[in-house]
């Protein structure tokens, strides 16, 4: 038995003990039990960490006796990718999930008040950790011994040997594991009938949301840079499963504000937290089980029974708690006027949740169709594009409206004042984009974008003027920091607007052509001239590469020499991949895919992605908005002394 496995087993026992300690501590109101449960969390985290470190060590030292290492690494693999091979397979990624949950549990213990709400939260987190640990010590043991030492391993899939894939799983799993805390807090809040959970939960919600955003971003960037098909999102089941929790968590991030302001939406918020976590479990399951065909899945596995059990158990427990606490979560009015921020939040929740449930429906529909007709239908991008596009346009308009509408209520006259300029921007967008000949969808996209961004800019200007009046000489930065939640939100909106217009440009204004370039013969593509100058062949112990050297010219100026390539790897199944070449002129990319090559000609797919870099920029702005909203109060408390004095003077 490997020592790594022994540490995992200790973590399992320790978590089991912690669960029991919290359960009996709550039941018998014994603080000492809770204290022991807390200590056991530290022990579980430490032993899981040691176990993970041992697995990394086995990768770095080429210990191919360990089956997982033998399947996902080889001697020639660069050291950095030997570390990232940790999460290349099902067992390692479940271990990553577990260590992150344990990390969250330790962070929660250290950061939050020790009260009944925390005790319930940690009890639930422990139960979730137990599920993953029980998989790791049984059917998903990453330390399984082969019984002999192979001379070399099978190697890591070359598509995973990229910086993007080094970043994608850890960031996404930080989001996935964070959703466990959000769900546990929400459930604990309802169990203890304690509204405090929304205040305590908001930083965990935002933190989780930041990592889900980053995870999706790195996944999309990987698809674009590495997969070599010229896109970043294919509505594949695995991609969808990372989007689902992001959508419901975004809805929750808004609806908890209504609970803060109105003490309503209690049932809805627990449902959103539940949906987020359930989608995370579903996503983990889809990726690892092979139950739905996907280009990303790990393949068939034995995970269907435990994950099906987990999905139903989470559903049943949530339903039971809701039933038990029906008096606490009973419906409460939350609206004073239809023209209010609260109302726009309701519509935003409707769109986000409808989008999530529709994507979920499209993702599982192949299973439904197989069950009913025996035919496993494929749900491709046209379905999602048809359904999600109008919802996305509506969401962007709402993004503008929710800034224009204040909390509580507003008068018709005030509303007219707030919407005058954005409406003018919308019309200007319509006129401009029709004049330049954009297609219908792009016209609507540009106009909606301008409407929403104008409401934001207008609000910034008005706020600046009002702050000057209210706070006198206090600097704008300090004022913005004081309202960091609001401006974090606004910044995230700007990021989403950039992502939106970036995606719209890719769908509606992309140019692409399959061309055969004859050697030394210029060929025009859009504003670029491409010249195939020479073939390039390279053979190393790792791979064989066929590349084409292609000069890129624009306005008589040489912009660079591209080298798109086809690479044939020698390890494993001898996988062949396309190394695309991307020439960036912000916000657009010239994207070259090599499809075939000989001495006299090169067969290429040439694409111009007009706005793709706005998606990457927008993702960072989204993240920055989240980070800004998360700045802890104690970091900025001292900055507001001036503001307080001024407020006192004013009052």
């Amino acid at each position, binding site marked *: 038995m490997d020592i790594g496995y022994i540490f995992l087993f200790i973590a399992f026992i320790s978590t089991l003990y912690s669960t029991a300690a919290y359960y009996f501590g709550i039941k018998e109101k014994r603080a000492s039990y809770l204290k022991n449960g807390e200590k056991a969390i530290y022990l579980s985290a430490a032993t899981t960490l040691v176990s993970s470190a041992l697995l990394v060590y086995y990768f770095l030292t080429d210990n191919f006796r360990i089956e997982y290492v033998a399947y996902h690494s080889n001697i020639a693999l660069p050291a950095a990718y030997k570390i990232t091979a940790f999460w290349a397979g099902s067992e390692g990624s479940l271990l990553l999930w577990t260590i992150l949950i344990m990390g969250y549990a330790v962070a929660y213990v250290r950061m939050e008040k020790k009260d009944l709400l925390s005790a319930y939260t940690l009890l639930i987190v422990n139960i979730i950790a137990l599920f993953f640990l029980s998989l790791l010590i049984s059917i998903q043991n990453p330390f399984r011994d082969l019984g002999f030492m192979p001379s070399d391993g099978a190697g890591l899939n070359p598509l995973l040997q990229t910086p993007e894939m080094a970043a994608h799983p850890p960031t996404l799993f930080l989001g996935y594991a964070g959703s466990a805390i959000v769900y546990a807090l929400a459930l604990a809040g309802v169990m203890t009938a304690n509204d405090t959970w929304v205040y305590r939960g908001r930083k965990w919600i935002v933190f989780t949301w930041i990592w889900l955003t980053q995870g999706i971003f790195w996944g999309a960037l990987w698809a674009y840079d590495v997969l070599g098909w010229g896109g970043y999102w*294919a509505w594949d089941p695995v991609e969808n499963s990372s989007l689902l929790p992001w959508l419901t968590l975004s809805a929750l991030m808004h609806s908890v504000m209504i609970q803060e302001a109105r003490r309503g939406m209690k049932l809805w918020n627990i449902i959103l937290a539940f949906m987020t976590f359930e989608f995370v479990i579903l996503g983990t399951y889809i990726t690892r089980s092979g139950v739905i065909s996907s280009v990303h899945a790990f393949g068939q596995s034995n995970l269907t029974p435990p994950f099906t059990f987990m999905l139903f158990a989470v559903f049943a427990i949530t339903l039971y708690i809701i039933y038990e606490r029906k008096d606490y979560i009973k419906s409460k009015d939350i609206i004073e006027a239809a023209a209010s921020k609260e109302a726009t939040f309701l519509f935003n929740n409707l769109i986000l949740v409808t989008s999530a449930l529709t994507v979920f429906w499209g993702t599982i529909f192949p299973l439904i169709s197989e069950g009913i007709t025996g035919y496993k*239908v*494929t749900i491709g991008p046209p*379905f999602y594009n048809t359904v999600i596009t109008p919802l996305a346009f509506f969401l962007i308009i709402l993004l503008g409206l929710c800034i224009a509408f204040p909390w509580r209520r507003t008068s018709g006259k005030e509303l007219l004042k707030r919407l005058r300029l954005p409406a003018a921007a919308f019309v200007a967008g319509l006129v401009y984009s029709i004049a330049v000949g954009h297609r*219908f969808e792009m016209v609507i996209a540009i106009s909606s974008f301008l409407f929403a961004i104008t409401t934001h800019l207008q609000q910034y200007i008005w706020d600046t003027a009002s702050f000057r009046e209210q706070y006198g000489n206090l600097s704008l930065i300090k004022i913005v920091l004081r309202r960091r939640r*609001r401006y974090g939100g606004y910044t995230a909106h700007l990021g989403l607007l950039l992502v939106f217009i970036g995606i719209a440009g890719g769908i509606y204004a992309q140019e692409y052509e399959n061309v055969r370039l004859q050697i030394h013969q210029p060929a025009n593509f859009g504003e670029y001239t491409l010249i195939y100058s020479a073939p390039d062949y390279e053979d190393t112990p790792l791979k064989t590469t066929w590349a084409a050297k292609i000069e890129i010219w624009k306005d008589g100026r040489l912009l660079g020499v591209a080298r798109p390539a086809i690479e044939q790897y020698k390890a494993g199944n001898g996988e062949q991949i396309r190394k695309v070449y991307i020439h960036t002129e912000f916000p657009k990319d010239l994207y070259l895919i090599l*499809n075939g090559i000989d001495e006299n000609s090169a067969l290429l797919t040439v694409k111009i992605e007009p706005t793709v870099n706005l998606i990457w920029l927008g993702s960072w702005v989204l993240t920055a908005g989240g980070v800004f909203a998360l700045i802890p109060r104690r970091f900025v408390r001292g900055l507001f002394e001036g503001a307080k004095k001024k407020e006192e003077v004013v009052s």
Partner: protein
Amino acid sequence: MKLKAVIVLFLLLIAGGKALAVTLDDIQSDVLCTCGCGMILKSCECGTAAKLREEINQMISSGMTKEEIIAELQSTYGKEILANPPKEGVFAGLWYYPVVLISAGLIVLYVILKRRRSEWYADPDEIINEDYEDLELEH
């Protein structure tokens, strides 16, 4: 009058968007490559995809409509080639579901928006500046 002008402009935009001849792009987003990669034809760059594109281009040249081309491809390669199921039988459920969902959601919102006896506790933008333990909460 203004409303009429807006409606006419909107209809013109829709008409402008639709009055185009069928192109390879229109078709290859709706069918899958037959090499087994699971990608839509537009995204696949293999030899099978190139051959299929040639086949579609020939059908476009012969004046076939989008529906006719997709029907022809379906009869040759089976319904597995469709990137989307047909809007009929069991598969209609796929398409009607989002409509049912949003309609139900709108009805719920209508009911919520009609009830206006809510209480105001605090501005969520400002709560971040308070210690939540100090707030008066319902228990």
